[in-house]
């Protein structure tokens, strides 16, 4: 610890280095400043653009106003001309004189008024009366020139005199263009002609406007417009030039010809203005010439596009203003960027640079071994968190470093402890570690506690091994005895098996005899059954005979009765024969009395007499026969009775025989059944004896196994006893505080412990 404080005091906090040392803040600074400058640049650029746009808008507004003024001037001239023409045409005195075509009177009436108006309406104003179709009648500005035909080059005059409607606007003449108002003159629907007022559209006209309004303007003719054909033909004739090479021709300028150069690329805008023919204004920025040109279409009286009306505005001032605004914006941007950068530098340095520097310095310090260095950064952002985390980490590290010193001390005390407990590893359980002030004190004592506990255990083990040795020897002896007994038993069982086998054979033989008896008894039973059946049949036959004899007896009886009846009938016949004989005697007497007549009759009577005699003798014979038959019938009846008696006796005997035979059958059946059960029993016995034989064999085997197993056990027990001896010898290695035989003291100790 003291060495550490020394280390800390050696290195102070190093000098806070330059801002550039903080790469992080430099990077943030550069990024921020670049971003800021980019924003400023964008703002400056936008400002310049909008300033320029504003100036251009202003410029456009000025140009538009100038165009409107110019157009207004032209329109005013037109309106004035139309008003003057309308006023003149509506004067009845003018109408009357013009109706009379009295030129001098008309001039006298109109010229003084016209001349007095000139100073007001401009000396360039001209006025003229025409008679249809387009003939000049009177020029108020030139009384000498009249009577010439205008129809070739004055389409507006043609139109007024043809359509009889007032017309006004720009009209291109032979050599010039003018703004005119032409009104027809009529009296009571009678068209008489027309009157016009007008002023020339020329450089002078534009110069006049320039003087009054400071508008530099110019008019260009579109050389392809058909309305200008007459003009250009006249021009070419007069100047002997070819004009149509150019599409646009400079016609009039407020500054006089050629003074201001018009840029070459204005052409397309002019074409657009003419072709579209709308009121749109086109702007042409001629920066080399330091001018802006506004271009719009120029229409004639008939609303045809005949060229362009252009206004030139000096750009010098505008360009200067634009340049100035750019300078101002740039200067403002630059100063803003500078101030902003400084501000960013200040902020980044304060919020990032300083904390980063402090944290970096602390890391430097740590690198040089100064673990007491701490940052003082107290911001609430991530850097503040980082700084406080770093401080906390350093606090922890310091604690860890301090524990390093303690670890050395611990190592030393551990080695001491190891030295003390090394006796334990040699089996000396009496060894104890010293409990010191060191950190290992508790551990040392835990070794002591363990050694104490181990002593108890080893003591118990020693006792147990002795007991095991004794016991296993006892068991070994018992097992050997058991083994011998088992062997004797095995021999006895083998003898039993052979006896059982013999018995089994005898039983089998008996079973066979029983089976044979069964078949014999079955046969005798069948014979008895057959005998009984035969006797039964005899009996049935005898019964039939008895029935027949009885029937015969009845028949003979009936025969006797019939012969009796025959006797009766013979008696009757005999009586009849007697009476017939008497009758025949009577007849022969009668016949004899009748003499001859009765001779034949006497023969018949004689015949009848003979018949009667024969009948009598026959009946006597029959009677004798019948008496004979009756005697025989009686004899037959008697013998019949005897026969019946014998039959009855016979059947009674047969019944007896049948019963006897049935008894024999029943008995033989019983016999058969008994023999059958004897067979079953014998079979079962045979099976059982076989099973017994098997069982006995198994018992024999088991006994043999038991014998060998107990032999094995005896051997194992012997080896266990040996093992127990070995174990005891091994445990002997452990040295205990008191001898094992001194058990009283031991027990005492344990009670206290």
């Amino acid at each position, binding site marked *: 610890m003291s060495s550490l404080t020394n280390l800390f005091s050696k290195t102070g906090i190093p000098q806070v280095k330059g801002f550039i040392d903080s790469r992080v803040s430099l990077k943030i600074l550069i990024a921020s400043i670049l971003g800021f400058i980019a924003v400023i640049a964008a703002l400056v650029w936008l400002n310049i653009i909008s300033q320029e746009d504003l100036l251009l808008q202003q410029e456009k507004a000025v140009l538009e106003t100038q165009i409107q003024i110019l157009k207004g001037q032209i329109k005013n001239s037109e309106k004035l001309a139309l008003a003057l023409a309308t006023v003149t045409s509506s004067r009845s005195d003018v109408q009357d004189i013009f109706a009379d075509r009295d030129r001098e009177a008309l001039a006298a009436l109109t010229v003084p008024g016209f001349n007095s108006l000139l100073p007001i309406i401009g000396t360039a104003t001209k006025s003229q009366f025409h008679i249809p179709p387009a003939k000049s009648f009177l020029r108020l500005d030139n009384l000498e020139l009249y009577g010439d035909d205008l129809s070739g080059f004055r389409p507006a005059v043609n139109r007024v005199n043809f359509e009889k409607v007032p017309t006004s606007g720009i009209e291109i003449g032979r050599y010039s263009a003018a703004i005119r108002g032409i009104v027809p003159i009529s009296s009571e629907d009678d068209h008489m002609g027309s009157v016009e007022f007008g002023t020339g559209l020329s450089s002078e006209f534009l110069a006049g406007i320039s003087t009054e309004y400071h508008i530099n303007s110019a008019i260009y003719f579109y050389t392809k417009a058909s309305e200008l054909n007459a003009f250009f033909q006249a021009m070419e004739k007069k100047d002997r030039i070819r004009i149509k090479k150019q599409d646009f021709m400079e016609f009039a300028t407020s500054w006089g010809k050629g003074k201001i150069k018009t840029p070459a690329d204005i052409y397309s805008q002019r074409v657009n203005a003419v072709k579209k023919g709308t009121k749109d204004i086109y702007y042409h920025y001629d920066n080399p010439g330091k001018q802006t040109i506004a271009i719009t279409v120029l229409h004639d009286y008939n609303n045809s596009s005949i060229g362009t009306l252009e206004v030139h505005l000096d750009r010098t001032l505008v360009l200067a203003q634009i340049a100035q605004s750019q300078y101002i914006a740039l200067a403002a941007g630059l100063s803003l960027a500078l101030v902003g950068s400084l501000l960013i530098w200040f902020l980044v340095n304060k919020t990032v640079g300083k904390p980063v520097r402090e944290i970096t310095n602390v890391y430097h310090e740590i690198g040089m071994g100064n673990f007491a260095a701490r940052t003082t950064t107290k911001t609430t952002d991530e850097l503040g968190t980082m700084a406080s985390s770093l401080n906390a980490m350093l606090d922890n590290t310091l604690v860890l470093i301090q524990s390093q010193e303690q670890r050395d001390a611990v190592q030393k005390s551990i080695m001491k402890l190891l030295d003390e407990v090394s006796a334990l590893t040699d089996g000396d359980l009496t060894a104890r570690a*010293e*409990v*010191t*002030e060191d*950190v290992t*004190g*508790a*551990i040392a*004592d*835990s070794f*002591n*506690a363990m050694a104490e506990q181990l002593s108890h255990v080893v003591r118990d083990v020693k006792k147990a091994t002795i007991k095991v040795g004794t016991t296993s020897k006892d068991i070994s002896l018992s097992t050997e005895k058991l083994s011998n007994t088992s062997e004797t038993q095995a021999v006895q069982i083998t003898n039993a098996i052979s006896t059982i086998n013999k018995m089994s054979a005898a039983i089998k033989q008996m079973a066979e005899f029983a089976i044979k008896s069964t078949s014999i008894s079955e046969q005798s039973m069948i014979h008895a059954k057959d005998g009984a059946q035969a006797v039964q049949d005899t009996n049935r036959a005898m019964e039939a005979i008895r029935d027949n004899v009885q029937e015969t007896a009845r028949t003979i009886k009936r025969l006797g009765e019939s012969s009796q009846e025959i006797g009766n009938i013979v008696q009757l016949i005999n009586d009849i024969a007697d009476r017939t004989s008497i009758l025949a005697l009577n007849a022969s007497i009668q016949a004899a009395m009748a003499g001859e007549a009765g001779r034949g009759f006497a023969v018949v009577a004689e015949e009848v007499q003979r018949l009667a005699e024969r009948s009598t003798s026959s009946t006597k014979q029959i009677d004798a026969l019948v008496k004979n038959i009756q005697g025989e019938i009686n004899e037959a009846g008697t013998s019949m009775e005897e026969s019946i008696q014998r039959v009855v006796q016979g059947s009674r005997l047969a019944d007896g025989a049948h019963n006897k035979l049935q008894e024999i059958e029943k008995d033989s059946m019983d016999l058969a059944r008994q023999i059958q059960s004897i067979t079953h029993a014998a079979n079962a016995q045979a099976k059982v004896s076989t099973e017994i034989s098997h069982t006995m064999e198994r018992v024999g085997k088991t006994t043999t196994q038991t014998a060998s197993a107990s032999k094995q056990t005896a051997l194992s027990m012997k080896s266990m006893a040996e093992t127990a001896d070995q174990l005891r010898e091994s445990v002997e290695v452990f040295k205990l505080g008191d001898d094992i035989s001194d058990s009283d003291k031991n027990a005492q100790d344990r*009670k*206290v*412990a």
Partner: protein
Amino acid sequence: MAEKNILVVEDSPTNLRLIKELLEDNGYHILTAIDGEEALSKAVDEHPHLIVLDVILPKKNGFQVCRQLKTSPSTQDIKIVMLTSKTQDSDRFWGLKQGADEYMTKPFTDDELLTNVKKLL
């Protein structure tokens, strides 16, 4: 209330005297021992109510003494306050593990010791 017996086991005579006087002033009867074996025999013979036990002791250390007393049925009801210069957490752990009822470290205040003794008796 009968006077309570307290056995103070301490090998440093100065400390022994300080503790003895402090406890006697507060009405306890004090026995003393200056090594582990004496402490054991006195604890068995006298059966004090409480033992103020140092750890670093000759013959048998305080842990051993505490362990033997607390595992023997006849002495395990004796309250033990370990009072030692061993300040490690492991020492406190081991001391309490051996059955000490309170583990105090030196230097100590009188109040501390008295509070613990009163609490246990």
